[in-house]
């Protein structure tokens, strides 16, 4: 059984969605579905990772992602250690490699890495023997976020195929957007990005998305409205004139949402800037907003990833 599963998920690391197949994604989501049920039941802990060590190595602050990975590891019975490092103190990248080598010497099984620079987890993965999970690197990818978004959508809509998904906000700096674009494309959804031109990366249309600068056209008949967090520093005149103006044109409220499908889901990777990219009334709409459910399913998705990536380490008896 284990051997079969390893063949089914032929990746040593999870560094991004780009490079995964629809089969890979389905496998993770199917497994995660099972973990959702486990997490909701009273006996929510298992021993799948018993004896294995997961290290959360976060060069950037993130309480929610780190906690989600920590819970995932612990619910599977693994040992989990959190390490954080202030990005500014790691000026010389050799420290990053040194850190990896040091951790490697301690015989880890999974290294969960968040780093402010794109490609840092890939660099680490070339220096360690354990599995590496990218928990967000620069503006590159955040694969487990896209997977949990996909699971949330699939549980509500039954499938991703054929859905129209509008990803709105700071696409330029968003790893969540990139991972979601890749994943939704792989799974046959139709992807739109909606943002002011200053917050769109070059040649974004080449990633297989429709580009919109207006919420009115971008959200029209959308099945899913995925909002992105806007970092406060983007609002100080370089990318956008003001928070007030951004909210007027790109903040999600009921008026803008009116053109989407009546059953459109509202998603956000959190933490939200209420009144900036999303109106509180919409964010808290229990009929349409699935934001808290995303958080819940995040743990299950991360359990599935830890499970799949450690099958080789656990041997046949696990």
């Amino acid at each position: 059984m284990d051997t079969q599963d390893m063949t089914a998920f032929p990746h040593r690391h999870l560094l991004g969605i780009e490079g995964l197949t629809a089969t890979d994604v389905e496998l993770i989501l199917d497994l995660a579905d099972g973990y959702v049920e486990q997490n909701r039941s009273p006996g929510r802990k298992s021993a799948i990772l018993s004896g294995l060590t997961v290290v959360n190595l976060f060069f950037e602050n993130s309480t929610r992602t780190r906690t989600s990975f920590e819970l995932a590891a612990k619910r599977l019975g693994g040992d989990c250690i959190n390490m954080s490092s202030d990005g500014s103190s790691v000026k010389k990248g050799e420290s990053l490699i040194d850190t990896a080598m040091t951790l490697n010497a301690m015989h880890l099984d999974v290294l969960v890495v968040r780093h402010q620079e794109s490609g840092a987890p890939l660099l680490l993965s070339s220096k360690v023997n354990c599995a590496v999970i990218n928990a967000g690197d620069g503006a590159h990818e955040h694969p487990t976020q896209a997977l949990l978004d996909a699971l949330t959508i699939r549980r509500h809509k039954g499938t991703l195929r054929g859905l129209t998904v509008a990803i709105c906000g700071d696409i330029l700096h968003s790893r969540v957007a990139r991972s979601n674009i890749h994943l939704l494309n792989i799974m046959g959804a139709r992807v739109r990005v909606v943002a002011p031109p200053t917050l769109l990366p070059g040649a974004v249309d080449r990633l297989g998305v429709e580009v919109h600068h207006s919420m009115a056209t971008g959200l029209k008949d959308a099945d899913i409205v995925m909002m992105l967090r806007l970092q406060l520093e983007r609002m100080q005149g370089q990318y956008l004139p003001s928070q007030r103006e951004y909210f007027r044109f790109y903040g999600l409220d009921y008026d803008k949402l009116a053109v989407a499908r009546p059953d459109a889901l509202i998603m956000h990777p959190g933490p939200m800037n209420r009144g900036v990219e999303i109106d509180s009334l919409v964010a808290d709409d229990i009929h349409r907003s699935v934001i808290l459910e995303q958080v819940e399913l995040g743990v299950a998705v991360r359990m599935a990833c830890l499970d799949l990536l450690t099958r080789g380490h656990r041997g046949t008896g696990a």
Partner: protein
Amino acid sequence: MTTRTAYINARLLDPATGLDAPGALLVEGERIADLGPHLFADGVPEGVAVVDCGGHCLAPGLVDLRAHVGEPGFEHDETIATAGRAAAAGGITALAALPNTDPVIDDVAGLEFIARRAREERLVKIFAYAAVTRETAGSQITEFGLLAEAGAVGFTDGLHAVADALVMRRALSYASAHGQTIFQHPEEPRLASGSMNSGEVATRLGLGGIPAAAEIIMLERDLRLVELTGGRYHAAHISTAEGVEVIRRAKAKGLAVTCDTAPPYFALTEVDIGDYRTFFKLSPPLRGEMDRRAIVAGLADGTIDAIASDHLPHDQDSKRVPFAQAAFGAVGSETLLPLTLELAHKGALPLLRALAAVTCIPAGILGLSELGRLRPGGPADLVLFDAGRPWVVEAEKLRSKSKNTCFDRRPVQGLVLRTVVDGRTVHACA
């Protein structure tokens, strides 16, 4: 007694005169005494040392328009000794060192330091640029007159563009009074704040993009200033199709403008970056395929005058880091000739035109017109190479102290067999 060495059985190549013929060349002491198809037709006289070239190419030693030599301040990356050995191994007999050292070469003492160290090492000829502005900070111009007298071959802020239009205007204007050229890194610094070419690949990798416009805008601005001042201007490492077009138009107008490119810009594209390969992080960044083709076309029609090595050594610490944090630049001395020859092998450029781009033309741009040519009475700076010999670049075998080449494992054609500076052999292929 003056030593005399006969280089016989050679394919003589002199791009300056268009010579491409079998023959021989005689060196007396530090100078070329004679050369030609009929020299030593009756045999080499007694007392003359003989180097049998085995039918291989004997050409003027390469003149490298732009290289970093590490000293002073970056000896961990490169020293004048290692830079000299790398250059010699690449067939380079003279190079112009950039002033981005620590301290910056912005005074006479700095120039004299480079000159002294080069004399001590006695490898290849090392000339130096002086900074356009003090500490290359972009505001106060340096003592162009005194620096030119002390041997500066031109003025440049090297890795930094002279971004302030008024400073550039005054620099061009003032330099013209001393017959000097301003060498510009044409990149609008604010637009160039990313780490690779702007576009699909950068978007996929989540890296900040540097648009082609960063180069074009700076070129357009500078050329207006050249028109305004009548100054002499050289644009370093052109990387974009439109950049080539801008230079083409300026030359058609008759402005005193020259430019160069470097092998990565005609041999590679942004796609080579792959999974964040930091050795491909260059300034300007590697561009797209259309740009690469335009660079080749620009070389073929002479819009791009020269090819520089852009030798910029970095130790491992500067490159074994996430891409955005990695230093810009790659070593290039030892790959300059084979990659330039690649243009000829592929039929993009005639052999003599390709060689001109690394010999007589850069020498002329630097005001060193005695160099880069085979001429009786001229310095015996020579390179003997086997134009057809295939080999594979291996980073760990480079003579440079740093091994950050973009061309590791690349099969190339054209092996340097011997490099001669002022009649002395400074490199011989083992």
